[in-house]
């Protein structure tokens, strides 16, 4: 389970294979949301609770797991999950709802170094959400919209609160929404890139977390750091995949 600040993601694994996965909003009660999600997954897979050998949890809410679970950090989970999907991965960039994380790892998925940003909304998915609202476009539309940008403009402000007013004034100045969307993604890409530079950028880079689903952000980040990014099919589940793998890995090495 990956209990994030916005969504909880859970995944059932048999040996090293994903059986089923799902996510839901944390809402008011992380615990209840997590419980319901796990029960749903079990029912879908025709399994019962007693079939689960072990539960591992990660994410900011990892200690509010409704079941007894061992815990690992998001940093290790991201490294393991990414390494499993892309053995060439040496760096993972994880952009979530309220924090972002960069991890450098070995060819075996062991963590070498990492940096985190969780103090300021300007480097997280919340920033894009707020900007989409100011721009009056749907969250899932802002990415494709920014790919249609014709001009490159720069936001003067970083702070989400200030950038909201800046976006509104850009709309008043008749700047196209596509150009503004591009500027928004460039702004957050810049912040993520400087986080990555702090621990040294290294190829191959895997982009995970919910924000990786945003093609506009992927495009801006690629042009900012000048490296093509590997984006898995379900980027928001990489953390959950990583935690599940810690247990099967343990089992494997125990067998050996």
């Amino acid at each position, binding site marked *: 389970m990956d209990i994030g600040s916005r969504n909880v993601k859970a995944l059932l694994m048999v040996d090293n294979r994903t059986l089923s996965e799902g996510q839901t909003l944390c809402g008011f009660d992380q615990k209840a949301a997590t419980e319901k999600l796990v029960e749903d997954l079990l029912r879908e897979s025709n399994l019962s609770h007693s079939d689960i050998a072990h539960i591992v949890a990660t994410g900011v809410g990892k200690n509010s797991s409704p079941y007894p679970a061992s815990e690992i950090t998001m940093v290790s989970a991201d490294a393991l999950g990414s390494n499993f999907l892309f053995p060439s991965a040496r760096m993972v960039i994880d952009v979530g709802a*309220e924090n972002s994380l960069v991890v450098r790892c070995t060819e075996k998925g062991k963590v070498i170094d990492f940096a985190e940003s969780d103090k300021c909304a300007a480097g997280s998915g919340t920033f894009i959400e707020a900007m989409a609202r100011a721009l009056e476009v749907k969250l899932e539309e802002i990415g494709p919209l920014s790919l249609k940008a014709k001009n490159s403009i720069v936001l003067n402000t970083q702070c989400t609160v200030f950038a909201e007013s800046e976006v509104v004034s850009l709309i008043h100045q008749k700047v196209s929404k596509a150009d503004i969307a591009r500027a928004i993604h460039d702004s957050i890409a810049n912040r993520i890139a400087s986080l990555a530079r702090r621990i040294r950028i290294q190829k191959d880079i895997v982009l995970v977390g919910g924000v990786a689903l945003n093609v506009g952000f992927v495009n801006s980040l690629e042009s900012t750091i000048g490296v093509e990014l590997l984006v898995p099919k379900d980027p928001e589940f990489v953390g959950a995949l990583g935690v599940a793998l810690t247990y099967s890995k343990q089992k494997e090495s125990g067998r050996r």
Partner: protein
Amino acid sequence: MKEYWRWSEYRRTVRGVDWTKAEIVSGGVDVGAVSSKAALMADDRLFAYSIARTGSSSPDSAKKVTDWALEGTGMKLSDVQCVVGTGYGRVNVPFANRTITEISCHARGANYIWGPMVRTILDMGGQDCKAIRSDRNGKVTAFLMNDRCAAGTGRGVEVIADLMSIPIEEIGPASLNVEKDPEPISTTCVVFAKSAALALLRKGWSKEMVLAAYCSAMANRVAELLRRVGVEKEFVITGGISKNIGIVKRLERIMGIEALPPKNELDPALAGAIGAALFARDFYKKRA
């Protein structure tokens, strides 16, 4: 929908000042990110002033707030011999003879309002926060500024007023209406503080408790800036947040120093505009 963030705009004419007998009539216009202020001076006396919300166009806001200060005084813009523009939108005051940074203007204005003993000025504005040190003439000797982040700015308070559905002017008093201050909200980011505040409300905290936790966090944040520049007596607070007693009281407690109370019922948000008008007077004198 009710706009809880909306603070009251107003204008005043100071009684007992006859501007027609003045040797120099000068004006200061402070176009801030959130509010615009205009001050008119007859020689060394403040004569009329106004404060209004900055609109989407800075030149229009400058014109509007100045016209409003002039309203009903018999004075016309052409009677003002020299105007200085200041603030975030200072280059957009079309009728200004010069522009000066708001840092200089706040120091000068504070010196005028409270007197030459002022050494430290904290200007808490709409979109930034500045800690300024000055000498006995109101000249800036050092300053530090946060203009990157909404935490500790008026804009941040507006966001919370809206979230809590409490008129912005009542935030401060409400936040003091608690028996004991709770732990400050752990995040300084306004966006995250919003979700943290919501979580506390869901946990059953009263609005007053949440506001107390929020005001404490803001005071902590501003205290950091002050510590870095160093605080020396007398200490004064200018800008819109100087009117938020919840933040001011907590800041005084953290810093162990009391801010001088507003003087002559003068709104400390006007310090920048008054400073600008004083500079305008200097320029006119030098030129004449």
